[in-house]
């Protein structure tokens, strides 16, 4: 199952290495990972998506990450109400015929054209992963030259369901 984990870490050199090294050591495969500063420049936030077999593995992952000295807080956001976004840059091959067609096609996705050349256009799209996937599939027949995706970053919503409805962990 897919898990979205958020880790608040000290903004020190080597922290990311420590985090990803730990995942490798415990045999977790990272689907995607984003890192950035928070409101406090000495603290960064890492959002990672991983595939795990079951809840026990997920619990192990959270606990092992939490054990790291310069990881301050770890949260499994999977079962929380959250907003998550990913940004993708997509370079699509175009001909004079398809150019306006593509422009129409991307409109419902609220994607924007960042760059145009004679042979291709570069688009920017933001949304949850499913939306980004859908747009890519739609554009594939035109010929995709290059894709660059950031991976998911996420934040829990201001209002959460009652704690009882959330998935209970044995501890933490």
């Amino acid at each position, binding site marked *: 199952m897919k898990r979205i984990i958020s880790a608040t870490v000290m903004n020190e050199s080597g922290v990311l290495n420590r985090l990803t090294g730990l995942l490798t050591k415990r045999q977790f495969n990272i689907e995607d990972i984003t890192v950035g500063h928070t409101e406090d420049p000495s603290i960064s936030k890492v959002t990672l998506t991983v595939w795990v077999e079951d809840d026990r593995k997920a619990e192990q992952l959270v606990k092992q990450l939490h*054990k790291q000295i*310069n990881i301050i807080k770890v949260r499994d956001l999977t079962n929380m109400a959250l907003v998550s976004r990913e940004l993708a840059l997509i370079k699509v091959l175009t001909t004079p015929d398809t150019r306006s067609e593509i422009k129409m096609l991307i409109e419902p996705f609220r994607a924007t054209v960042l760059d145009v050349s004679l042979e291709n256009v570069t688009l920017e799209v933001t949304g949850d992963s499913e939306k980004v996937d859908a747009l890519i599939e739609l554009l594939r027949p035109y010929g995709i030259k290059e894709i660059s995706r950031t991976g998911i970053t996420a934040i829990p919503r201001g209002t959460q369901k009652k704690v009882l409805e959330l998935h209970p962990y044995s501890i933490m």
Partner: protein
Amino acid sequence: MKASWVAEKKTVETSLVSGAELFIQGLQNEQVEVIFGYPGGAVLPIYDALYKAELKHVLTRHEQGAIHAAQGYARVTGKPGVVLATSGPGATNLVTGIADSMIDSIPLVIFTGQVATQVIGTDAFQEADIVGITMPITKHNYQVQKAEDLPRIIQEAFHIATTGRKGPVLIDIPKDVAVKAAEQKAPSEIRLPGYQPTVKPNILQVKRLNEALQQSKKPVILAGAGVLAAQAEVELLTFAEYYGIPVVQTLLGLGGFPAENSLSLGMGGMHGTYAANMALYESDLLIGIGARFDDRLTGNLDHFAKDAVVAHIDVDPAEIGKNVPAEIPIVGCAKETLSALNQSAGDKLNIKDWHYSLTNYKTEFPLTYKKNESELKPQYVMEILHEATEGNAIVSTDVGQHQMWAAQYYKFSTSNRWITSGGLGTMGFGFPAAIGAKIGRPDLPVIAVVGDGGFQMTLQELGVLQDWELPVIVVIVNNKSLGMVRQWQEIFYEKRYSQSLLDIQPDFIKLASAYGIDGQRVENEEDLRKALTAALRSQKPFVLDCVVSADENVYPMIAPGKGLHEMIGVRG
């Protein structure tokens, strides 16, 4: 006004000292008594500062010896072991010991030299990325960028190594950082927002365990090294005796509960006693205390404590539920948790049937081996050792057959007498660890029980015995083979003894004598007793080469993939 302000400013003295001086001060602030180390290029400034300092330094003959000695020291004193080595090969030679400390939760603070900051990353002479290399095998590690950070980092490192679940912390010091002058600052408060170990247990979970106890007809305690790390031996004894709960010990937990106590079932696991393993197998309430349910203890997890409610007490939350799901998880140190349990103790239990059947197992299927007049049996060597030292010696071992025999037959009644490489299973560990133990506890007899294979991995440390005239007794359990490998090849590989027979070996006695150390080769019980008594009395280093039967196997045994109830060789 203005003039006085200037004058005041002048009186603020900023005394500058070198990074190396700050290193010495940092260690003195932590009350470090001894450093185990080996010099080299990148640590020359530190060794120069040590030259003047009043700090005991034990020069081993290899960095691996230094770190194992520090481990032995930490095991018997409960204080963190301190290691110092140079950059590159000096640092990489420590890796085995660091991994060993990590998996067995031994508190160490390891200092490595590093090439100067300007040349880090240029593949300079004796450069190795030791911080990168040791990241997965340390509790935490640092590279010091500025000399003024050293006092804070040293303080943090000792704090991290010795609190929560203990472990090794490495500090990498570039050469220029040790040379640079920095301001001396009084140690401040430690600020580690990401490190807040939970020591006190959750009262609700303690209550749940108390309730579960009242329901239980077949409770059993599995006591691990966490009991020793937390110095919770008294609390454990009180808890077990109040309810009459039988106690199984892990390999590393030996000594945490007196072996002679009627509730003691001995060691559990792959070479554990029948009673211990059957107690774990049949139990309806398993209370794990500071034990991590290692695969050598549990055997096949499908058969492990399958009818039991599992309560798991551990200071490391990540251990709970890792291998065995726990119905009653208690995050907390063994001492605090057992105290809480003792304070809230409920009614005494009526579990006579359980005691009766376990006592039966104990008397019906004790540890056993066939004695033989013509040969010296390794198990008998351990029994004689126990007798001659009145069970009061510190015993240190490598890994393998001799380790299991020592664990089975040297009955530990006191804590901090047993040093062994459990999780990592490091050959060559026992002898240097014994050196560190003797330095930490000069008042106690120290015996390194080693195999003929493992001893040859670190025997250069005989030089340290000679140097410090340390009365460590090295007992070589000599079966001219890598015994445990040979045993597995005999049982699982149809006696194809691939690379496990060591027929050609040095004359260990001559070797000892080259270091100015006395020794004796013994082949029978009488000579062994005499030599041992003499060695213990002499207060000098001694090497005792015990020629034992070569084809003896460790039993009982649980084959890999089998459950705890599927022991073989129970009847000797």
